């Protein structure tokens, strides 16, 4: 029965891939709708399938194909896999509903068919990565996922910005695959098989096992966008179509998280320092991600940096899990792992919600610059409510789901006083402080994002003429928003139902209290306040009339924090002034500039690039087209062979 369901899911995804690609010559809407319907139905069924595995706690195995002895593509789903399948299914289903409206408004003619087919294949590839039973099929589907996502990123391939983003993404994603492959090969050398089985570590094999872990960690960290491997997110997400950004940020990053968790839980028996490594990378990504998100004024770039922050939070949870496991604190380890998993799900939901609604906004205004938006709450009321829900969730305000998962992590951090090692205790408290900073900055960041996009008056003609999007583009995000609310309010009940007894407050009670307080406030104000309507302008420092130009902009809002973190941003301010009188009293004109130095680009990416270019130049110089030089190489090679033979004999 359950096998049949899974085969149905695979068949629907395949149908959703093949049909639009086969009909790619004609630009027919029906084909795209059919493909997206297949993807949506398959994703919804996938979520149902995942629940069927999670709730009874069963496992599901399906040998698929064995081309050679020892090498096989096998599927296996346990509770951990099913949890991530649930995440993929939910987000992909909502994205498919949204895409059915979004693709019809896009440029590109029959390339949209490829987009729909590629989306189906992308979701299928991610499903199969999570469902892989051995490292070989994991690597196989991982590479499929990387290749398809590259094609999706390159949708607007004529745009030079997209080409740059595509190349950046391609290099980074192949680097990730390379590291994962090295890890898989190291594991194969250690065990002699591709099975994901617990590794028996002897003192002799310990260095190789550590190397395998490090390779896998870096592979997954690149894919998850952990700082300093994060740069591709910032390029790839803004360049790709919004549903693709939603899938990549919401789901694909989680597949990397899944990979790390799967190998840590099932294969390795981690050391303490592995946990510290993951924790440090995680917390650094969280803090730096949100600081960079705060200063960004491209709405999708801002969301991309915020993804880095949230993945950092998830990695922090995983790091805590490893540390507490090594210290023997089982309950705290469970709470941390639960926090990481729950935040993965929550981030998938609210980040895809935000990317989809941001896509609606970009579609309505034709720009990604939040300084050119403003006042959209009036023209796009439903979209603004949906975005607002996502913003509350990501800013971790109670009682939404972002709050629930971050609260779990705080609980784990607060209980770390029970750790014995004093150095570790200091590290954990420093991380706690940084984590608190992250939460606060994240709230500030989304205050800025929401208010400059939706509130006040429109700051450009495009924003003035914006209109509400079609129903399907509201329906998909609406489901995600509802899920965000429900997962937050019923978090405690969900944990109990899943069988985890942990010290966690009942958010249902909190939300009832909040609702009650809100209602009470409204009633009190309703009966006590004056009903007289008073129409006047805000006091504007003596200016005669107020237009959108006097509004508090996103740049203005972020300026104080940019100044505080100037050492992180490496801001360079410069200004020139000219005066109209000889006493320098009347300001005539001038220029002002704030430059942000891209730290990681300047100090990590560019030196690597320069070194590679230098190496390439040296190699190119060897190839100089002169016959004598090639003869010299042959001569040296012959002498090398003679010497080698002489030494070896």
């Amino acid at each position, binding site marked *: 029965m359950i096998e049949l369901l899974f085969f149905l899911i695979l068949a629907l995804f395949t149908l959703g891939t093949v049909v639009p690609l086969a009909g790619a010559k004609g630009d027919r809407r029906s084909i795209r709708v059919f493909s997206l319907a297949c993807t949506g139905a398959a994703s919804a069924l996938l979520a149902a399938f995942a629940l069927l595995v999670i709730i009874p706690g069963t496992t599901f195995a399906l040998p698929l194909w064995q081309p050679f002895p020892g090498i096989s593509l096998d599927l296996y789903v346990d509770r951990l896999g099913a949890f991530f399948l649930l995440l993929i299914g939910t987000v992909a289903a909502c994205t498919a509903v949204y895409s059915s409206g979004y693709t019809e408004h896009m440029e590109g003619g029959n390339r949209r068919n490829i987009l729909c087919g590629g989306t189906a294949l992308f979701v299928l590839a991610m499903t199969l990565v999570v469902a892989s039973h051995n490292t070989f099929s994991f690597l196989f589907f991982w590479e499929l996922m990387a290749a398809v996502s590259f094609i999706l990123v390159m949708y607007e391939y004529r745009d030079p910005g997209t080409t740059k983003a595509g190349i950046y993404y391609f290099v980074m994603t192949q680097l990730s695959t390379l590291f994962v492959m090295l890890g898989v090969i190291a594991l194969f050398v250690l065990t002699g098989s591709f099975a994901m089985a617990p590794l028996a570590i002897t003192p002799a094999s310990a260095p190789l096992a550590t190397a395998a872990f490090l390779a896998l960690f870096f592979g997954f960290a690149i894919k998850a966008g952990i700082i300093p491997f994060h740069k591709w997110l910032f390029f790839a997400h803004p360049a790709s179509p919004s549903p693709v950004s939603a899938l990549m940020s919401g789901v694909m990053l989680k597949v990397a998280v899944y990979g790390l968790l799967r190998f840590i839980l099932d294969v390795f028996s981690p050391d303490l320092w592995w946990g510290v490594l993951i924790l440090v990378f995680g917390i650094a990504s969280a803090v730096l991600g949100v600081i960079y998100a705060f200063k960004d004024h491209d709405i999708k770039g801002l969301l991309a940096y915020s993804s880095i922050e949230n993945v950092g939070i998830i990695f922090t949870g995983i790091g805590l899990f490893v540390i507490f496991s090594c210290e023997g604190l089982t309950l705290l380890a469970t709470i941390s792992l639960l926090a990481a998993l729950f935040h993965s799900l929550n981030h998938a939901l609210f980040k895809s919600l935000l990317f989809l609604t941001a896509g609606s906004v970009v579609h309505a205004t034709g720009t990604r610059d939040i300084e050119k938006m403003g006042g959209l709450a009036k023209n796009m009321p439903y979209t603004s409510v949906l975005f607002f829900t996502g913003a509350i969730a990501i800013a971790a305000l109670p009682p939404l789901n972002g709050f629930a998962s971050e609260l779990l992590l705080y609980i784990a951090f607060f209980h770390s006083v029970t750790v014995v090692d004093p150095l570790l205790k200091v590290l954990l408290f420093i991380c706690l402080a940084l984590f608190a900073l992250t939460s606060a900055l994240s709230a500030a960041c989304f205050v800025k994002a929401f208010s400059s996009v939706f509130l006040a008056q429109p700051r450009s003609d495009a924003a003035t003429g914006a209109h509400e999007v079609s129903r399907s583009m509201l329906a998909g995000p609406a489901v995600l928003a509802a899920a965000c609310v429900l997962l937050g309010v019923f978090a405690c009940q969900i944990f109990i139902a899943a069988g985890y007894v942990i010290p966690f407050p009942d958010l249902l009670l909190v939300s009832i209290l909040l609702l009650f307080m809100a209602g009470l406030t409204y009633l009190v104000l309703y009966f006590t306040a004056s009903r007289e309507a008073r129409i006047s302008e805000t006091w504007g420092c003596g200016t005669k009339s107020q237009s959108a130009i006097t509004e508090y902009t996103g740049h203005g809002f972020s300026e104080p924090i940019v100044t505080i973190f100037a050492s992180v941003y490496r801001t360079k301010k410069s200004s020139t002034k000219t005066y109209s009188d000889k006493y320098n009293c009347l300001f005539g004109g001038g220029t002002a500039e704030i430059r942000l130095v891209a730290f990681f680009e300047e100090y990590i990416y560019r030196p690597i690039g320069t070194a590679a270019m230098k190496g390439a130049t040296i190699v190119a110089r060897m190839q100089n087209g002169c*016959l*004598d*030089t090639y*003869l*010299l190489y*042959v*001569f040296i090679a*012959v*002498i090398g062979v*003679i*010497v080698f*033979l*002489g*030494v070896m*004999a």
Partner: protein
Amino acid sequence: MTDPAFFDGVIKILFVCVLITAAYIITTKNLISLVRVYSLQSLVLVAIATALFWREGAAVLAGIAVVTLVTKVIVIPYFIAAVQEKIRIKRDIEFHYLSPTSSLFISIALMLVIYIALSNVLAGTPAKGSLFFFGAVIGLSLVLMGMMVTFSRKKAITKVLGYLSMENGVLLFGLFATELPFIIEFLIVIDLIILVILTTILTIGIDSTLEEYHNRLHRFYLWEEQEEAP
């Protein structure tokens, strides 16, 4: 007369002659004497093959001696001399990477390296220390010295001579270290003749005057002297 020790002595003297000619080929700047020395080197090889034939009595050795005599001592030098007369270049004074003196030092070092390497390779066999071992070492050294000529000289004609000298090294190595079948030796010789004929055609042309061919070669940057001109 057929005392092996006598022949060993003769062959050793001939080895020294081979080395002297090779050293001359590496260092000389005079193209005419280069060809003469090459034919002298080939003649020494003929003498070695004859001496071996006297000692061993194998007919193959006599065949090799005859073929080498006809081709490398008479035919090939004749062609090259013809080319040289036409192109009127008498000296090759341009060197790449290595000057003549350093080439000489490097060839000495090479011989030592090859000697050590080969004695390691042949450590377990009775061949070590024998005449055949020396023949192999000198043959291999001659190959590498010829190769040095091919990459350290700029003139095409000198490169050809370097290549021919390499082939002499292969022949020497084949005479002593391995039983090179006669047919292969014969085929290599035919290759050489064709190489030289091709060089001749390229250098002076079969259907044109020298001036015309100069221009043609200049167009393809094959004429070294004019390549230097801007």
